[in-house]
Structure formats: C-alpha cells, structure tokens
C-alpha cells in the first residue's frame, strides 16, 4: 500500500545486474518507522539498499524518496543531504580516530562542527573519540559509523546488516539506538528472525521478489521510531 505521505515510494521498480533480475519490478511504499529487509547473502539485499539510497539507479520503474523523484539528478541532489547510509563493511583506514571520522562525515554533510561533539556524546563515544577506528571494539566502531551516518540528522537512514558483528548483550542496547536514528530507518539482516520483534515492518527478498512478512511482533513498535 502506498500512502500519500510515504517516505519511500517505488512504482514498478526493478533492478538488474549482469543480465539478471536482482529485484523484479515491484511496487511498494514505506511511510515511517523501522523497516526490516531480510535476505541471504547475494540475494540483492545490499543492491536494493544502495538503490534506495540513490547511489545506484533502478533499471526500470520509478522511485520517490521524501517526495522527490530520484531517478533524475535534480531529485537526487535535493534528497541526498537528507539521507544516511551505513554499508555492511563500512570502509575506513587505520590511523583515523573516531572523532576525525565523524568530523570527516560532518564536512561532507555540511554540518556545523558542534554537531560532531553533540552526536559523539549522544552515542556515548566521548571517551573513545580519540581512539583510532581499528582499535575500537565492534560495538563502538558501529556507534562511530552510526554517528557519522547521522551527524546531519537525516530524515531517512539505511543500515546494511549493522548488527552482524555485535554480541547479544550489546545488540539490545544498539536496537534502541537504531530505532531513534531518524523518522524512517531501513535496516537489513540475512535472516528475517533477526528483524522480527523490533522492526515495524519486515520485507524479505527471495528469488528477486520482495515479500512483506505479516508476522511482526510489536514489542519494540510501541516505541515510535525517531525518538
């Protein structure tokens, strides 16, 4: 169903790569909240995420984000400052501290310098800010990645398998953080079970088709996303 106020609207949108469909033409709409996107590795999950984040163009169909048609450069230019994306293995090099990493992202997002300190504090990274990225434990590195992704307070955030490398005790704490990143958050995982229980909606990508799972526990859903 596509609501008038949908954050993401895809109409007959399909993605092809190397002559085969990664996502067959499909129509869907996402309003707000935390949306899960599950699929095994190489199912096209990451390709769909980067397409939704405007870094790749859909092969067919239309895509609207935050009210802008992003199949053209004008729409992309308008929307990109309002998006955040954290890939599965976000590339960063040794020798750069967490603060420098977030400041680097803040520069490209044209965000004032004080936003860096604010988000480091919000993500409880103040003490670890001077540590180099590759010295940080997995959960703190993820927090630094999230801080860089959201330093400009985006309206729509895409996270590719963010919880893949964290342990269970840290997972629950991070889930609370993920839900508050932006009004709309799209998050992926290899298994739908990892998303069930805390995502408002869960889609599964299988055989190049996007299917919405109807069994979604509402435990976390009582807490509105973006808070």
């Amino acid at each position: 169903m596509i609501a008038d106020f949908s954050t993401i609207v895809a109409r007959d949108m399909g993605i092809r790569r190397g002559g085969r469909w990664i996502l067959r033409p499909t129509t869907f709409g996402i309003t707000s909240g935390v949306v899960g996107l599950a699929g095994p590795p190489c199912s096209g999950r990451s390709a769909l995420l980067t397409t939704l984040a405007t870094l790749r163009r859909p092969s067919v169909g239309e895509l609207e984000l935050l009210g802008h048609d992003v199949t053209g450069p004008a729409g992309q230019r308008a929307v990109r400052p309002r998006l955040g994306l954290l890939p599965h293995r976000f590339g960063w090099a040794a020798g750069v501290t967490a603060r420098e990493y977030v400041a680097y992202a803040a520069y490209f997002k044209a965000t004032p310098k004080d936003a860096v300190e604010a988000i480091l504090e919000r993500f409880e990274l103040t003490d670890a800010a001077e540590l180099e990225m590759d010295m940080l434990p997995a959960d703190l590195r993820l927090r630094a990645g999230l801080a860089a992704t959201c330093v400009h307070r985006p309206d729509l955030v895409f996270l590719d398998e963010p919880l893949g490398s964290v342990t269970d005790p840290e997972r629950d704490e991070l889930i609370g953080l993920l839900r508050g990143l932006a009004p709309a958050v799209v998050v992926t995982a290899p298994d739908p079970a990892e998303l069930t229980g805390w995502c408002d909606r869960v889609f599964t990508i299988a055989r190049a088709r996007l299917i919405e799972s109807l069994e979604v526990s509402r435990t976390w859903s009582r807490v509105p996303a973006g808070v």
Partner: protein
Amino acid sequence: MSDLGRVLRIDARRTAPFLAVPALALLGGVAAWHALLPGVAYWDDAVAALFASVRVLGPASAALAAWVALREHRLGYLRGLSARSPALGPLLDLTLLGVVSLSAYAVVAAIVVVKTLLHVESGHPQVVGLLAGALTLLDYAVIGYLAGRAVPRLPTVAAAAAVTCLWGIVRPGTWTYLLPPPGVEHIHPFAGLRTELLAGQALWSLGIGGLLVSGYLWVLTRRARLALPLVAAAVLITVTTLWIHAQQRAPLAPRAFEYSCRQWPLTVCVHPALRSALPSLEAALTPLATRLSGTPGGFTRVEHRPDNDFPRPGHGVVYIHLKDLSPGYEHRAEQEIQISLLDARTCANPAHAAGVRYTALVSAWLLDETPPRMPDTAAARAFGRWAESRRRHWLRLHYARYRSCTLRGLDFRLL
C-alpha cells in the same frame, strides 16, 4: 587550519598516497638516469630524460590513481550522499594524487638537474619542457583515476598501467610520437628541442587533462556551465594536435654553439656539451697525428661534427662524430679518423683483398692495436721489428698505397 584543509589531511593519512612518492621517484629517477647521454651534460637531453621518466612514472601514477579510486569508491556512502557538490570528493582525490605525482616528478627533475649541473652544462634549461612533462604526468594520474571510478574492480589497476604504458611505447601513426610524452630517446648535441613544440605539447596535455576532468565533473554534476571548459579543452586539443602534426618534419632545430677547443699540441674542438672529453681526446689523438705527420693524411686540427655532417677531410683537418662519452669514446674517435684516411672505393674492390690485409696491419700500428694475423708473416714480422721512426718514414713513402689498400708484401721488404 580550514575545514577543507583538515579533510585533505585526513584523506592523506587515510589513503596514505605519500608512501608511494619514494617508489615513484625511484622508478622515474632510474628511467631518467638511463636516458641521459653518458658523460654528456646537455640541457635539451635533460628534457628528453624527463620525458623518458614520465613514460615510466606515468603508468605507475595511473595504476596508483586507479587503486585510490577503487578504494574511495567504497566511501560513496559518505561522500556521495553529501550536501556538498558530488564533485568535491573526486576533486580532493585528484588534488592528492596530483601532489603525489608531482612530488615524485620534482625529485626526478632535481636528480636530472643536479647531474647536468655537476657536469659542464651546455645549452639552455627548457622550463617549458619541465612543465610539459609535469602536465603529461598529471594526465596519466587523471586517466588512471577515472578508469578506477568508471570500473571499480581490481583488474582496472593493472589495465590502467598496461594501457598507459602502451601509449608510451607504441604510437598509432608516425607523427604521433610527437604527442606527449614524446618518443624522443636522446637529444644529441648540435640539435635542440624546439621551445614552441614543447609549448604545444604542454598545451596538448593541458587540454587532455582539462577535457577529462571537466567531462567527469559534468557527468557528476550535470552543470551547464561546465560546457565552457569542455569546449575550450576540445578546441585546445584539436588546434594543438593539428599544429603538432604539422611539425613532424622538423621536430628538432639546429642549435647555435661555439666550439670548446684545446690548442696544444693538437687543436681539438668539440661541442661544449662534451668539453670534459677534451684532455682525453687530446691524449688519445696526438700519437695518431704524430704518426701521420708528413703524409697527406697528417692533421693538426680535429673537429667534432653532427651525425649527419661528413665534410671531406683535408688541409690538416679531420672530423669526428661522437654521440656521447660512453667508455671507449677516445678509441672510437681514433678509429673514425683512421677510417676516414682510406679510400672506400678502392678498399672495397675484391681485387685488393691482399692489400686490405696489409692496410689493416698498418692501421693496427696507427691505432695501437694488436696486429692482425695475416698469411704474409714475413711482412708482419718485419713491420713489427721496425722502430717507430722507421715505420713513420716508411708510411710517408707508402701512404698512397696505404690509403688505396694496394700495399704489397714487397713494400715491407724494400725501404
């Protein structure tokens, strides 16, 4: 420090491209050193050596740039989803890569300049040649970077190096060797690079770089105002290509010079780029001049001439053609003078085969070489026993036969 400066510094630390500077400088330095004429200090040849270094440095820079582009592609999530221009990230990368390539080039240029200055310098430093080399090197980096952005796969790094290396070695047309980096191996003394041709090559490189960078920025931003630099670069490339094509008949120009001479006991005059060779040439050629004195082949003046200039020796003047001062150059000069004494037409006559052997025996003495084995051992033995003064006297009497390769065994028995 400004925010942009801070970001550039983070990029420099993150991608660590400056670690490549020593390796690039070593590659370019070795290529330039090999390209310099041995023992010759000639500014025009120094520019040719810089171009030779660019032919090696360029593909290496292209490979480095492709690799950096490959790595930076993964940062699209930060730099692509930006409130700033999408061109900012690539421009920062290109700035860093340009600084890295130019740093290595500066080291190579310093090596070439110091070597030229340490020897006796000659000619004029061609600053526009240095500039043409730098702009060409930047083109290589841009090509590698754009290749890495267009196809962000590991094989692109090798492909960028291979294709750009091929451009340095093989050219599609005969005149295209003049396009940067020009395929000149050496600039020998007496000839010089034409400043206007170097300027044309610099402008051609500038046009290629401008076209590639503004074209890529247009792809990223679709800004209409980029049409102006795009068209300007295309016009510049077209005009300079046509102009360079028209220069193919005379890429080098004769260069005015004044001989450097040593006056005693012989007058030996060489191109000033080879003036360090004067003492050894004087020492090597004086015994030959002494042995030939009193004969029609006697000489008191030796002149260094361009490769394509062969005046008739005579009136006590002989000519030598030295390209460089690689080991053995003194002996090569002696041999050239000795060969110039002989009548090529009569010596090539098969009827004078025996006379050629006797001439070789005398030539060996003139050049202080080991005498050749010959059937007439009696003549060889007799000539070998003679004192130096007797041989000189004998040569004065038999010079005409020596020159025409018509000596006989009898000539060595009768004196």
